[in-house]
């Protein structure tokens, strides 16, 4: 079983900053649709080939603080999650506005199991 460390929406950027200061490399983020329960966002970090995973569980339509001001590399994956799941990230360093892969007129979130989400944040 994958061992994950729970993290709250208030502390997600502080945790990222702490990981950055301790020399952890951001591997990526993974979003999982939990249906009615909302979303899981997993933050995967690596240091000396050892991985650490933080799990943020959020209700739908929650705006998540972007960690791209700390880890520039997060900008692409956060934009991808916005495209696929409709999760919005606040203060992202380069915001494609939900059009990284999709055309701007697309309003459904293709990776949500039941997609009624709106693209406007």
């Amino acid at each position, binding site marked *: *079983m*994958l061992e994950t460390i729970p993290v709250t929406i208030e502390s997600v950027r502080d945790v990222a900053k702490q990981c*950055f200061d301790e*020399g952890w*490399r*951001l*591997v*990526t983020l*993974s*979003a*999982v*649709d939990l249906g009615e329960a909302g979303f899981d966002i*997993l933050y*995967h970090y690596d240091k000396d*080939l050892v*991985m650490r*995973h933080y799990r943020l569980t959020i209700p739908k339509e929650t705006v998540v603080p972007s960690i791209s001001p700390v*880890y*520039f*590399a997060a*900008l*692409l*994956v956060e934009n991808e999650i916005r495209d696929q799941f409709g999760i919005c990230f606040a203060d992202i360093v*380069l915001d494609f506005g939900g*059009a*990284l*892969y*999709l055309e701007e007129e697309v309003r459904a979130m*293709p*990776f949500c*199991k039941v997609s009624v989400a709106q693209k406007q944040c």
Partner: protein
Amino acid sequence: MARTILPFGPQHPVLPEPLHLKLTIEDEIVTEALPTLGYVHRGLEKLCEVRDFNQMIQIVERVCGICSCLHALCYCEGIEQIMGVDVPRRAKYLRTIWGELHRMHSHLLWLGLFADAFGFESLFMQFWRVRERIMDIMEATCGNRVVVSVNVIGGVRRDLTPEQCQWIEQQLAISEKEIKQLQTTILSDYTVKKRTVGKGVLTKEQAYQLGAVGPMLRGSGWAQDARQTGYAAFDELGFEPVVEYDGDSYARCAVRFRETLQSIDIVRLAIARMPAGETAANVSGAMEDDTLRPVGGKRGDIMQAYNRDKHHRITAAPPPNFDIPAGHVAAKVKGKPDGEAVTRVEQPRGELMYYIKGVGSKNMDRVRIRTPTFANIPPLLAMLPGCELADVPVIVLSIDPCISCTER
């Protein structure tokens, strides 16, 4: 100073796949680069909800043709981790051999494209001629040249006979000699150095902080490679990563060139140490589909395909006269994947990561794929500002971009 916005791509002679960069130029110097993606996005991850966990092997192999074997390996290791499948040691060695053959043909492909990017067309053809021999090995041992489809949950579908192993070693000896003959041109030529040394520098700190992986990371002085984690048979092969320290396009080229030769040594070592035994565990659900059983091939089928395609070939020698043996299945493992796993393997372009979540049904709840080019785009955006416009094509190519991988 006047600013000019210049579109680079999505169609460009150095780009095999579509990537668009919006370059801001001031007096021929790039001051900003912004990417645009979405030209080849296929939504392959989403298919895990409608294809069962075995069929997903064929899906993930098509994320990227060039490293299809390693995508399947990473996915299968994730499922095996969730289901607690003990993969036979012989299967681990076979996975290592085919994985390293994929690395070799990917690096040779890139070295050819890189040579072509600065006008060395003959060198381009020389690298691809060598690559053709590696493709022949894969065809003769798997039945396919690119998407080899050898991995299954629990092991591999094919086996290698002693005669095949001996023939592979002979082919690798010829390839090694041919690759070394090209070393002087690709690494010592004045023009190549003029176009690559000091171009697109990524410092050691930048490489780590921006999440670079693979030859991008190792070309900047970091001795980090997912093969050090010991997946497949690497825990028994004493692997040490190739490292260069200058962080420029030349260093990345040198890493890939040296890794090609290193892969030959790894395949030789794996063949020498490969134990006898089964090639796959019998996983419930994985072997019930006829299309996923360990299978062999007849010499006649291979020769028919060879004769059909021979006018496309560069190498003269036909594949050797042997059949492809099927694998041998071990004890049965029952159940459906229920749980989460994160697995990593080292693709030719860098670290590949899969996050897999199963909920005890035949379909996976989530398959998340983080490909190496996806990780290497942010470092590219940091490398381009400050460089001359004429150097942009070589710098972009130096990350070995695979956009089909990136967008999935």
